[in-house]
């Protein structure tokens, strides 16, 4: 189940050689940190 909708549209120009680095970086960056609302879990007042 997807945790959130990942926006995959590209809005900046990318040079071909940075594409591979950037997509690897973005994939790993996503896996490194994830913010959650302190109110964002069900079962509390």
């Amino acid at each position, binding site marked *: 189940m997807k945790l*959130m*909708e*990942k*926006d995959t549209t590209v*809005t*900046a*120009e*990318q*040079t071909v050689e*940075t594409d591979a*680095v*950037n*997509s*690897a*970086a*973005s*994939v*790993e*960056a*996503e*896996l*490194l*940190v*994830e*913010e*959650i*609302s*302190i109110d964002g879990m069900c079962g509390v007042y």
Partner: protein
Amino acid sequence: MWRVLIPLRTSSISLRAVVIITADSACELHPHVAVRPEPFGALAYHYDNRRLVFLRHPDVVKVVTSLAHHDSVADTLRAHDIAEERWPAFVSAIDSLISSEIVRVR
């Protein structure tokens, strides 16, 4: 609120987010942040702004919690033997933590 993580652009034009730091920046964990170990990494909580961030990998936990002891992000990454091809992801993650004020520039 969900935050979309912005990939670090190596080109000079960065359209979707201002990248605040580089690998040469000196950073530190914000003093009002508590870090609690979890099986998959750690949970970081900022007492003032009440933001909650999961540090999803033990490597990012080690790096983020030792930023204050190194002159730069690069030095910290080197000290923990983080492979250079992973550096953009780590810098991007730290940049994201700065936006949440979990980490700050010193």
